[in-house]
């Protein structure tokens, strides 16, 4: 009988997870699993509730990206009630969503992931954290804390609550933007844009160049990708667009969110609570085999950067071109999720400014008239962790009759399992391992930001 190495919990990630690595008698990896520990049953809790209340309830699925659930849910209820938000309401929602993306990226890259790179994957575990960074590089730490604060405060001032938001309502948005608010937000967004460009440079010069050998190895697998692109020109979109499902060879199909169930299926393995979405429309079934995976695609930053034809804002697009010239399209290296995350942060800052400069943003026509009724609506947004799908059916009173949710992180559960196995197999040989090596297995998971 071999042994099982447990890494529990996986730390510096945003969810609850553990890793089990099974070793054979010779101490080599036989198999490895990532377990995501979360089952709360929100689909069931919201049944019977008035649909227009649901956007404020589903926030609590995830306190790391509550804006995403809040807005996907609003979009789904819009669809079920057959209402189109006013132009200003639509743009105010998008504004909050892209601002939330900025804050999330600061949190993930600097607070959670960067200790592995700034202090090194083998740094002692007691200092390998943001507090360690505060000691080693206080200037960087202070800057990062300030920027996260700036971003969260922008949301809190304008929209009331940054964590567990309330301001999106069916048909649009709960409050208009005043001109003073617009000017303040614009000033702060310019500061964040500078910081995003600084972060990208910082990472290119201090992280990606230094750790190239790790990047080209750790957790690498070959899969397809899922993301959202502009309906007209195929550029990167995170709030609204059409879905694009790309095969590992770069060919793709585009589809509208309403039809997601024709393209995606969910698979259950007996050993895990978490369901694993896969590309049903490829008609090849589901298999986690590292050499010949079937139906496996990834979502989240690297996926979005791979599926889009370009980015509509200039600085992010320049960064994308540089990225593609170095890594091609689609890029498969798992640690490049971090690189893609920082490109998206630049996009989110540029897009925030674009929206704040849009003429109608301070209009008071923020909310369309809504009549609760029977219907079905699918609301999709790109959450930081992947394509987030809320699909609701309402009854004649406008209450939820049934709901199906596919949460961003779950798209990556199958590929994360593969990356864990790949990383464990290449790092652990003949029973030799240590804390630093096990942390590298965790790094393969951290890249996905589950």
């Amino acid at each position: 009988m071999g042994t099982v190495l447990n890494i529990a919990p996986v730390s510096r990630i945003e969810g609850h997870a553990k890793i089990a690595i099974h070793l054979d008698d010779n101490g080599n990896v036989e198999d490895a699993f990532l377990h995501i520990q979360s089952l709360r049953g929100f689909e069931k809790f919201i049944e019977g509730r008035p649909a227009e209340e649901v956007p404020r309830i589903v926030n609590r699925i995830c306190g790391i990206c509550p804006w995403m659930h809040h807005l996907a849910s609003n979009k789904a209820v819009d669809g079920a009630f057959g209402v189109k938000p006013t132009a200003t309401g639509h743009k105010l929602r998008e504004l909050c969503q892209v601002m939330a993306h900025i804050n999330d990226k600061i949190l993930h890259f600097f607070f959670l992931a960067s200790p592995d790179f700034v202090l090194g994957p083998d740094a002692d575990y007691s200092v390998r954290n943001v507090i360690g960074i505060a000691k080693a590089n206080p200037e960087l730490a202070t800057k990062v804390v300030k920027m996260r604060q700036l971003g969260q405060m922008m949301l809190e001032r304008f929209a009331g609550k940054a964590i567990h938001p309330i301001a999106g309502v069916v048909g649009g948005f709960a409050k208009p933007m005043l001109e003073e608010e617009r000017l303040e937000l614009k000033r702060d967004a310019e500061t964040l844009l500078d910081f995003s460009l600084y972060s990208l440079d910082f990472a290119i010069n201090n992280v990606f160049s230094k750790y190239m050998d790790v990047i080209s190895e750790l957790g690498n697998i070959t899969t397809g990708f899922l993301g959202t692109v502009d309906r007209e020109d195929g550029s990167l979109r995170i709030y609204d667009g059409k879905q694009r499902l790309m095969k590992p060879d770069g060919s793709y199909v585009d589809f509208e969110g309403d039809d997601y169930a024709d393209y995606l299926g969910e698979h259950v393995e007996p050993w895990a609570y978490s369901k694993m979405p896969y590309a049903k429309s490829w008609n090849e079934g589901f298999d986690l085999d590292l050499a010949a995976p079937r139906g496996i695609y990834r979502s989240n930053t690297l996926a979005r950067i791979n599926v889009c034809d370009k980015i509509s804002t200039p600085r992010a697009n320049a960064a994308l071109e540089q990225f593609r010239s170095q890594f091609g399209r689609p890029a498969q290296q798992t640690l490049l999720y971090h690189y893609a995350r920082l490109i998206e942060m630049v996009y989110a800052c540029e897009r925030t400014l674009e929206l704040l400069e849009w003429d109608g943003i301070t209009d008071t026509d923020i909310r369309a008239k809504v009549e609760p009724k029977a219907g079905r609506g699918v609301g999709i947004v790109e959450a930081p962790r992947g394509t987030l799908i809320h699909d609701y059916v309402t009854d004649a009173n406008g209450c939820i009759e049934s709901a199906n949710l596919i949460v961003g992180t779950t798209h990556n559960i199958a590929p994360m399992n593969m990356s864990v196995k790949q990383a464990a197999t290449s790092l652990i040989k003949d029973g030799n391992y240590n804390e630093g090596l096990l942390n590298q297995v965790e790094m393969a998971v951290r890249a996905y930001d589950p």
Partner: protein
Amino acid sequence: MSPEKIRLNTEWLCDCGGCHVSLVDLHEKILNVLESVQIQKCPVLTDEKGYPEAEIGILTGSIRTEHDRHAAIEMRKKCKTIIAFGTCAVYGGLHGAGLAHSREEIMDHVYLNSPTTRTNFIPATEVDGLEKLVTPIDEVIEVDLYLPGCPPHAHFIFEGLSALIEGTAPRVRQESVCGGCNRTMKKSDVTEIKNSADAVADDDICFLSQGFLCLGSVTLDRCLSPCPNHGIMCTGCAGPTMQILTEPNRDIRTEVSERMARLTEIPSEVIRKSMEQSAKTHYAYAMATKMIGDKPTFLIRKWIAEVEAS
């Protein structure tokens, strides 16, 4: 590490992670806190996997699995002061709504009746066993301090932590959300309950006066009242006020229906009935706590059955 620093452990049980983010979002103040506090275990920030000894232990989330139960007990053993942090920890939180559904119902729904799930069985998994009900942590371990809020506002977190660090008793404020709300309550001639989809409310007048159900008056302020000040009714996410918790014959629906009836022309009986019909919404955050669940006035399963039968 200087030995005189106060050691802090945090752990999350079944929750959304938002309370931990709210700790990180003390922002610049976290740098102040770090001058006197050593964060040892904190699943989002550090790689400590065990439970070292500590002066302060912060627990977020409620107990849903055997793993959660074990973690709460370990934290209690190793930490001198335990803070139940956030509405989930204090009252069970939103997923306490599991009370209205059995574990089997939830499992069936997720694995067997979902339209996109192509497999057709419930996994018997290696993941720590799911318990039957969601349990607030003080039904499993002793809790020293309670800080509800979903999540608590940084203002209250900082106030609480500073008091602990300085060794003084934290100030316990008992104001309701109405205290921080800028709307004025006044008598109206409204005769019908409205919902947020029907009409857009006036920004200066209390929601109750306008016929919208707002839970501000029965909810403890641990949030600085953002919702009513941004055009949205309070749904009670910070949990009930002391009065609601301690008086045996008063609860959320009796209080709100009486107050709203005084402010409008709607009979309190009508309001109470309507709140019972949507009890899952109005009791969403606190129904798992015995303080609410065991009240003679709280009959959620009966109300749900009545709605389903109608």
